[in-house]
Each structure stands twice: as structure tokens, then as C-alpha cells.
């Protein structure tokens, strides 16, 4: 009995100062994209961990107990925002009992507030419209220019939490911006052939990518965001593809391929399965890798 009491006290005191034992800032992110950008900015001065893997749709994650433990120990929480994590982050934050990363505190950073969001809905929003995000489309990391905005915001926040290395974060973000801008010119050149081209997406998740590279997303395989396509909705889409001579469909790796294959059989439409996130496929470890990979996948597509 006496031993267990001592053990209990030891654990309790350990837990009280455990927040301060780590020299490096503990950064938790809701997606691997945010983790990759944070790592580029924070370098060796931060420990970054993503709560969800890039292979899964972050909207449908669940608050696993292991995630509670991670958020409990975090100094900074980075999230996509715009309701992307609405299904699991509020309950996770309540269970994690960490005031540093509660909304409104410096350890909570919603990056949707750092970028101009597309697809904001003016006027009434009904669930009849499907899985729409009234605050705006949350897939904004797919525009490299937003990547720069996010990195800058993260650098400022890291500098506030860790003033000692603030100049280093600034330096890193400048380098990140420079690299990304040079890269972007190359990517744009490679995807020249897609300029003004009508493209179909599976889900409403590539509007930012289209904005960045100048192609037009004219329709989606999902009849409404989040709704599984039906035979009737596919028939309508086939008519449109033939009518408007659309020849490219882009989609994430985690969606069902049957509808895409069906559209391909009926119309000859080309399919580009492109990674939507860092970590979506093996070998995509940085934010730059992500676009290198997207561009590689789109390079040979849609050219006729």
C-alpha cells in the first residue's frame, strides 16, 4: 500500500512538470500536410506529429484514445479548420484537457484563417446541398501559394511560442517561400497544356489546385458533395462529358474507382489519381514532394 502511494505521488509530480521537460516544442497537426509545412518552418526546434495519416480523408477521422494522449502533450495544435475536423476535434479537445491548445489560446492555430477561402456560401445553407462547408472549401493546401501563407502564419506563431528561435523560423520560411516560388514556375510550365481545360473532379476538393494551375473544374462525379454517384447521375455526367468533350477526371486515391472506370469505358475519359495530401502515397514526405507528384501524375494527362 505504501509503495503504491509513493508511486502515485511520483506519477502525479511527473505529470505536473511533464509539459516543460521537452526542450523542443511539441506540435500536433490534424493532417500530414500541416505537419510537413510546420517541419519545413520549425526544423530541428520542433517535434511534429500528425494526428491523421495522409491516406485517409481527415473529415472522417475519429478521436482515438492515442490522439487524446498526443494532444494532451502538445504545445501547439495546427488545424485545417473550415469545419474539416468538426466531427472529431471538439470532443478530442475536451478529452485532452490541455488549455494551451484550446481555441483562443496561442497554442491553437486554425490555418483556414490565414488563406483566402474559396467557395464560401452566401445565404442559407441546407444539408440538402450535400456535404458543403459554409465557411469555405477546406482543401486550400492544394494551392502552393496558400502553402506559403500557411508557412508564414506558422512561423509567426512558432516565434511567439519560442522567441529564442524566432529569427531561425523566419529564415526557414523565407527559404521555403523561395524554393516553392521557383518550383511553382516549373510546375506551371509542365502543366501548361491544362490551361483553361475543362476537368471533372470526383469530390469538390481540387478547386484550389485548379485555381493555381489554371484549369477549370466543370463538374464532379459526386452528384452533391459527399453523395455516392448513382446510375442516373453518372448517365447525366456521361452526356455532359461527350457534349463538352471533357477528357480528364482527377480524383483522390481513397475514393472508389468503379465510377471512374465506368466513365472511362463509356467516354474514353482519362483518369488521374492524384495524391491530395502529404503521405497519401509512399515517397510523398514534404509539401514540395506533394506537388512534384501531382504534377508528374497530370503531366501526360488531358493532352489530345
Amino acid at each position, binding site marked *: 500500500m505504501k509503495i503504491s502511494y509513493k508511486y502515485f505521488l511520483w*506519477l502525479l509530480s511527473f*505529470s505536473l512538470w511533464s509539459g516543460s521537460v521537452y526542450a523542443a516544442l511539441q506540435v500536433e497537426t490534424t493532417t500530414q500536410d500541416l505537419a510537413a509545412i510546420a517541419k519545413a518552418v520549425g526544423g530541428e526546434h520542433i517535434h511534429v506529429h500528425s494526428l491523421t495519416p495522409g491516406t485517409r480523408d481527415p473529415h472522417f477521422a475519429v478521436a482515438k484514445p492515442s490522439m487524446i494522449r498526443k494532444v494532451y502533450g502538445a504545445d501547439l495544435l495546427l488545424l485545417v479548420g473550415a469545419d474539416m475536423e468538426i*466531427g472529431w476535434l471538439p470532443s478530442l479537445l*475536451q478529452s485532452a484537457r490541455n488549455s494551451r491548445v484550446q481555441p483562443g489560446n496561442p497554442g491553437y492555430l486554425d490555418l483556414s484563417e490565414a488563406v*483566402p477561402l474559396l467557395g464560401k456560401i452566401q*445565404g442559407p445553407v441546407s444539408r440538402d446541398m450535400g*456535404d458543403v462547408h459554409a465557411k469555405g472549401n477546406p482543401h486550400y493546401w492544394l494551392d502552393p501559394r496558400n502553402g506559403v501563407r500557411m508557412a508564414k502564419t506558422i512561423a509567426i506563431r512558432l516565434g511567439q511560442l519560442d522567441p529564442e528561435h524566432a529569427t531561425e523560423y523566419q529564415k526557414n520560411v523565407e527559404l521555403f517561400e523561395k524554393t516553392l516560388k521557383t518550383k511553382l514556375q516549373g510546375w506551371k510550365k509542365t502543366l501548361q497544356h491544362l490551361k483553361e481545360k475543362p476537368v471533372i473532379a470526383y469530390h469538390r476538393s481540387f478547386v484550389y489546385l485548379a485555381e493555381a494551375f489554371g484549369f477549370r473544374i466543370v463538374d464532379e462525379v459526386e452528384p452533391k458533395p459527399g453523395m455516392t454517384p448513382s446510375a442516373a447521375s453518372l448517365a447525366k455526367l456521361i452526356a455532359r462529358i461527350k457534349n463538352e468533350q471533357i477528357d480528364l477526371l482527377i480524383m483522390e486515391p*481513397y475514393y472508389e474507382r468503379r465510377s471512374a472506370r465506368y466513365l472511362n469505358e463509356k467516354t474514353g475519359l482519362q483518369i488521374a489519381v492524384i495524391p491530395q495530401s502529404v503521405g497519401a502515397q509512399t515517397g510523398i514526405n514534404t509539401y514540395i514532394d506533394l506537388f512534384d507528384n501531382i504534377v508528374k501524375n497530370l503531366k501526360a494527362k488531358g493532352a489530345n
Partner: protein
Amino acid sequence: MFQLRYPHLSMTLVSGLLTLYSITTNAAEAKESVQEPLELRQQIERLQQDYQSQIDALKKRLDEGHPSSVAKTNNSQQSSSLRIGLSGLFAAGGSSVDNATLANLQAGGHDPKQNGFTLQNVELSIAGTVDNYLDAQANLIFLMNPKGETVMELEEAFFITRNLPGGLQIKGGQYYTEFGRQNKQHPHTWGFVDQPVILSRFFGGDGLRSQGARVSWLMPTDTYSELTFGMQNAKGETVTSFLNAEGEEIGGYTLTDRRARNSADLLYSARWLSGIDLSDNLSMNVGVSGLWGPNASGSTTNTEVVGADLYFKWQPAYSQKGYPFVAWHTEFLQRRYEAGDVAREILKDQGYFTQVLWGFKPGWIAGLRWEDANADGDTSNDPVRDSRQRLSPNLTWYTSEYSKVRLQYNRDWAEHLPNKTADSVWLQVEFSLGSHMAHTF
């Protein structure tokens, strides 16, 4: 539990709450039920919001080089928001046995328990952040009992601390006791249309809940490990295995109006829950729980309930909308009940349920549950202590994140039944309005 026996009164209350709901959210779903002046006001509010968002967008453009200033203004808006949701759960179906017998088989308060239609549960949930220190939540339940009366329950109303140091958290008020995995879950998140037999037996139709407080400690271990200790009132019909309500019976003993005299007459609960990721795709929860408290079969008699729960969830690396997945959930429970001051008979009951849910394609879940419950001694004529097994296959279709349709077949084996078996089929529909419900792990 607090019951309203006047249907018109509770309806006024419902409509009042619904009006409140439509004012506090700017959700457009509520527009039909609102009167004209409100609608006008809403339109004005909407216009104001539109302009505000346009102004914000312009500001944002100006601020693009200095994004942190934008972040500050928006954060405060978010934390003040209230989450309000209304979910409705309806069932229809029939059984090979009559309604009176069915009421014993389907002992859960929200179980479909009559041939025909059942309004299982309409739940109004309001949650939000009180201030820097507290979060709070209230769940009001409306249901129609077999007599056709509207019953309202204050299911839960509790606060929960936000930022105690050292991984501690205190919850107080009226709330579901943290025992096992399922007791705390609300009917609309269950994988089956009805409550497991053993939970109905030990914790009554409405689950184990009462007024009290608990403290939980998130241990500073590498993996998730949480300890919870609680104290709650042991009196009331939602504390079935303990003081319960006067006049109820268990094992032939009639319960008296025993009340708490001192702190020893309260219900004490303890739980340890651990969560481990076995791999990127497989997670596990293990829990052990215990309950200690007085029972009203005598003046000094006590009850003890212990339980163990195990949960595995598998999800492959590539999954669309959280599918496919396999979730396996098992709970064992055992009760030791001292009955009668003079007799001091020890009534021993035990049981378990084990269920598998397989989400085989987006929106579609196939489920299978097996249950067993029994007691020591001859209890063959007692519908709440006899030897009882149930097999329940089901199929659920989530039409979206906000509604579902479920078909379930129950095969019952129960000693107290004249035919020893019963067959039932239930169709269940759920809808939910308002705030996005939390995804359950």
C-alpha cells in the same frame, strides 16, 4: 428521472425549445417552423452576416502579409459558439410474442418493445463552452411510452473542467456513470436497435446515471491510460442495482425507501481505460470498471458490480469516409447483490455481450451480436434473472452522416418464456438536425 404526465405541457416545452434552437443557430433548416417577425429578423441577421463576411474577406486581402492579425479576430467567435442538435430515433416491427412478454425481452428504456411503431428517443442536446474554466452539456430526452404518454427526461446535465493541471479533469452534475464502454453511449450512437440484455438487467432501462461528481486522471504514460473515480447518489430508478426506487423487486426481495445517511450510502465508481494503437490500422481499448454502493433490499446491504470491456477497431490505410472498417466490442459484467437484512442471501448475476460491426462499403454496416446473461440458483421464472441468450444480426445504411436506416432480427432464448424462444424484426430510422455530431471511435 423526471416525468411529465401532461402531453400538452411537454409539447409547449418542445416547441419553446425548438424556437430557441432556431434563434440561436443560423441554420436554415428551421425556417418552416418560425413565425414571420422572426423570419424577418433572421433575414436581417443574414444580410448583416453577408456584409460582415464580405468586409472580412476584404480585410483578409489587405492583411495577407500579416495573417496573424486575422487569426485573432476569428478565434473568439469560434469559442463562443453553442452546439445544438436534435436527433430522432424511430422503430417499427413485430415479434412472435405479445406486447407484455416483449416488454420483458426488450427491457431497455429506448428499445422498441411493442408490435407496431415505437418512438424510441428524441434527444435535444445543447453543449458549449461556459467560460475559460468549464464546458457544459445538457441532453433532454423525449419519448412516448406504450401508453402513448410523452415522457421527458433530463438525461444528462453536467459541467466538465477545461484546464486543470496535471491531466486532471472533474465532471459534475447529472451524468452517465463511466462504467464499461456502452453505458455512456447515447441510443443514436449504438450499433444495434436495442440495449444489451446484461446492461438492462444491471443498470435498468435508461442506463446507469445519477447526480454526483467524478475526477479523472490522464496518466503521463506514453500510451493513453486514464483513471476515473466517481461518487454519485445511489437512489433513483436509474441506479437500478443500488438503492433504486421503493417497491421495485429483485430476486423476490422488495426494495424499501432506503436513503443515504452518510457518505457510505453513495455509489462509488472506478474505471481504468487504456488505449493502444497496435499498428497504424488497428487500435485497441481495454477497460476495467467497478461499482460499490448500498442496495435497498435491506438497511445495511450492499451491491458490487465489476466489468471488463475490450474494443478493437481496424481500418485500412486507404479508406473512404471512414469505410471499410471492422469494430469488435465485448463487455463482461458480474454483480454481487446482498439481499435482505435477515437472509443476507447473495444474489450472483453475470453476463456478457460481444458484437462485430463491419462497414463493408461507404455508408453500409453489417452487424452481429451475441449475448448471454444468467444468475446462480434457480431463476428460471424470473424474466430479469433467468438464463437468457440473444443473437442479433443487423444491417445499417447511413444515407448520409445525418440519417440512417437499420434492419435487425433478434432471436431470443429465455427460460421464462413458455416457448423458450422468440423472434423479432425491427426497422429503425434516425435523423439528426443541427450541430455536427461527434464521430465515435
